[in-house]
């Protein structure tokens, strides 16, 4: 069975202030802004293609608000 590096992206949407860094800097381009608002009135990120997440955590490094992060797991079979 072929193994490939697969990740998960997590959100804490109420912390988001909608700067868009994660959407812009996700290397896999899997994020987009929500159409709805969080409690503070910001569009927050949603994963449009969560299956493409590599768990690189670039979003986590770029998020100034600790509202998104990625985690990699090694053992997800395709």
């Amino acid at each position, binding site marked *: 069975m072929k193994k490939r590096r697969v990740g*998960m992206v997590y959100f*804490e949407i109420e912390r988001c*202030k*909608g*700067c*868009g860094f994660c959407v812009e800097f996700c290397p896999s381009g899997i994020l987009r802004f929500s159409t709805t608002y969080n409690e*503070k009135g910001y569009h927050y990120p949603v994963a449009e293609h969560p299956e493409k997440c590599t768990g690189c955590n670039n979003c986590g490094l770029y*998020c100034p608000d600790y509202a998104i992060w990625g985690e990699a797991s090694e053992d997800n079979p395709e």
Partner: protein
Amino acid sequence: MSKEKHPLSDYLREDRMPHMWCPGCGIGIAVSAFLNALKQSRYGQDDVVLVSGIGCAGRVAGYVKLDSFHTTHGRAIPFAEGLKAASPKTKVVVFSGEGDLMSIGGNHFIHAGRKNMSITILCVNNLNYAMTGGQVSPTTPAKAITATAPFGSFCQPFNLPFIAEAAGAVYVARWTVFHVRQLQKAILEAIHKKGMSFVEIISPCPTLYERRNQMGTALSRMNFYRENTVIKNGASTKDAVMDLDKPFIVGKFVDDDSKLTYLEAMNEYYDTTFSCDANYHTYTGSKI
């Protein structure tokens, strides 16, 4: 989507989130870089004390789950020096802004370099006094508009890496918050140096600086950093000048911690001076 803990949740005061920084402010990114570096470092969470001054970056102390001190305006460095002197085993990190560290605290900064007290200084430079509404700071580029320079600043700004090197810092680097991974590595290196290490962190202030200077959103500023920074490790700090809209250099400029720190120099000197005195012991701290 199943929710797990943020990877930095052990190091953040999550009960204080969301924090008070504006949308698109880079301070949060700088804090992530610092905490990630700390997690990778040889220091445990109880080995490190964080000291901040006043201002937006001064609030960092209130959001990290470390023994942390939010001191007075400009005085984070002497506070850190006192703490380090009393407790040499503690790793002391100063995290503050350029207005705090380089204007009101500028004299403390250069003297920290002279003394070479073993502290790490992380300076978030957002090119203006943000907490008070965006006034001219020591690093505001010439011609930039601020609240107190409504027609543009006519003074030349400080070049912080140049000052840091001249003052005697053993490690000097500059990165923007766009360079998250390089920044993290630089902080990791800086906190392991003995002596005064310095990392300048260029950050957007979209609410005030970028808005007044019609530089667009925080995101467009991040893209400006991406396109207009030149990575030049080992460059002369003289060349690290920042103009209003021209490219500027980032990188590691100074890395030589061979000189003695304040406490090392003191001990080496006194070990000889008092070698015959039975009461003398090498200084290891003054905890009661």
